[in-house]
């Protein structure tokens, strides 16, 4: 049966594009190879950076030939690998076949090019150890990323050129897919590291406000905790768009909601008698000051909404804009509730904290007045915020 290489290649190319998990792709390609060429087995050894050697990643074939991933390896200094990497060997980078190596060995006369002959004998020996009848390198630029090991053809015949070039193309496809997969993994790792850095930066920023106002130690973290609890419950009854982004932003906004207080003198923040009109006006600027501080950060547009509107009230009696009902962004409604709850139950210069139960009752009383009904309902289900 003649193999239609072009079709098989096209199929492999399609698979390379469609499958992002490199291992799945290698498995499929090896299965194609074993079936299409009719091999006893095929395996792919992939370079392992940590071990600095090549480890068997996938193997396909009949019983006794198939080896579990990670069971076998081949060292970098193995003659088989050196054929592909050692520039001093005159055929680096080419495909190795058992027949080719035997032929080359025999072509040398007695005593002729003894070191090369010895090396080829070693290659032959290594091929025998790995039960390989052909080895095909997969390069990315100048790096040997993987090696395809092929067993014997079922009809015991030699590999012919068309087959070898077909297999060689598949090996490069695999390497390309691997490189892509590794790149994406690296990228994701970097993104995670950046996110962690961002959150830590925000936490330090948030604690800078707390350092200024000793009454609010731990406040921002508690508000963030309550807000996240409320959001998780709320989501069950009301779909929230871009949920993952939303919780990230909610967390950040809750941590930073009072950042604008940085511009308010400490003696006002610590005052234990009623504030005068002027002072009140100044305190009420903190949502806008906070928004002004954060507006330079392009990625914080939603965070900004939470900071700017966290003192708005559902009935329109809040500040600074007296927004009403659904004019208030959800992120701000949630923070407003979490913020008020924590403020009620902790001691402040101007009042002593009330009990959590009293605070809960107060929130119920203000459903649809100070607070958005949906936020209150979610709060009641999340209360008392056990993790």
């Amino acid at each position: 049966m003649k193999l239609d290489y072009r079709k098989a290649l096209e199929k492999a190319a399609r698979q390379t594009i469609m499958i992002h998990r490199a291992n799945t792709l290698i498995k499929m390609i090896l299965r194609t190879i074993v079936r299409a060429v009719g091999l006893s087995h095929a395996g792919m050894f992939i370079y392992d950076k940590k071990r600095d050697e090549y480890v068997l990643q996938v193997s396909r074939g009949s019983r006794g030939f198939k080896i579990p991933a990670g069971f076998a390896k081949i060292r970098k200094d193995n003659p088989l690998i050196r054929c592909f990497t050692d520039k001093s060997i005159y055929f680096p980078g080419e495909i190795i076949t058992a027949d080719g190596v035997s032929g080359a060995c025999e072509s040398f006369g007695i005593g002729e090019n003894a070191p090369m002959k010895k090396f080829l004998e070693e290659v032959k020996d290594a091929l025998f150890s790995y039960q390989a009848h052909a080895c095909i390198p997969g390069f990315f630029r100048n790096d040997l990323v993987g090696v395809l090991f092929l067993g014997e053809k079922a009809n015991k015949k030699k590999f012919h050129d068309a087959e070898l070039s077909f297999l060689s193309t598949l090996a490069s496809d695999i390497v390309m897919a691997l490189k892509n997969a590794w790149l994406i993994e690296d990228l994701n790792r970097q993104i995670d590291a950046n996110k962690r850095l961002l959150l830590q930066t925000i936490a330090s920023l948030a604690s800078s406000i707390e350092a200024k106002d000793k009454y609010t130690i731990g406040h921002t973290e508690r508000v963030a905790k309550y807000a996240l609890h409320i959001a998780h419950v709320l989501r069950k009854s009301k779909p929230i768009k871009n949920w993952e982004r939303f919780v990230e932003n909610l967390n950040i906004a809750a941590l930073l909601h009072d950042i604008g207080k940085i511009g308010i003198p400490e003696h006002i923040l610590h005052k234990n008698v009623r504030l005068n009109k002027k002072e009140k006006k100044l305190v009420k600027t903190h949502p806008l000051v906070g928004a002004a501080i954060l507006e330079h950060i392009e990625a914080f547009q939603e965070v900004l909404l939470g900071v700017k509107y966290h003192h708005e009230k559902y009935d329109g009696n809040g500040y600074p804009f007296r927004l009403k009902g659904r004019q208030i962004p959800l992120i701000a409604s949630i923070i407003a509730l979490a913020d008020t709850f924590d403020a009620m139950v902790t001691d402040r210069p101007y009042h002593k904290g009330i009990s959590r139960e009293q605070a809960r009752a107060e929130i119920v009383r203000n459903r649809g007045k100070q607070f958005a009904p949906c936020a209150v309902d979610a709060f009641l289900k999340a209360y008392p915020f056990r993790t």
Partner: protein
Amino acid sequence: MNDARKKALVVDDEQEIVDFLEHFLRRFNFDVIKINKGQEALAAYREHKPDYVFLDIQMPDKDGIAVLEELRAADASLKVIMITGKDDKKCQQKAKKCGALDYITKPLDLHELRQKVEMYIGNP
């Protein structure tokens, strides 16, 4: 040459591994007995009297080191080769102390494995 044949007992809970080792060892004139359970090793040894045992360490039913102790108690000259994913100095020392002939960690370099097998059987 029939009298040159050696007998090996292969113990590993993973079927693909025992199958592969069977295949590999047969190329060096071994008769191979395969089992998947550490608990069955001693009985298999008594029944088949192998010259060599290739023994996994981390098996769900019984620890390979315990199996090694058991086998060596039954036959102090038995040649046991540990093949394991446990790349751990302490475990290696323990195996050596219990009389293991060799301790090979996964992933295995098949070229080295072959050289070792040839060395064990004194057949360069």
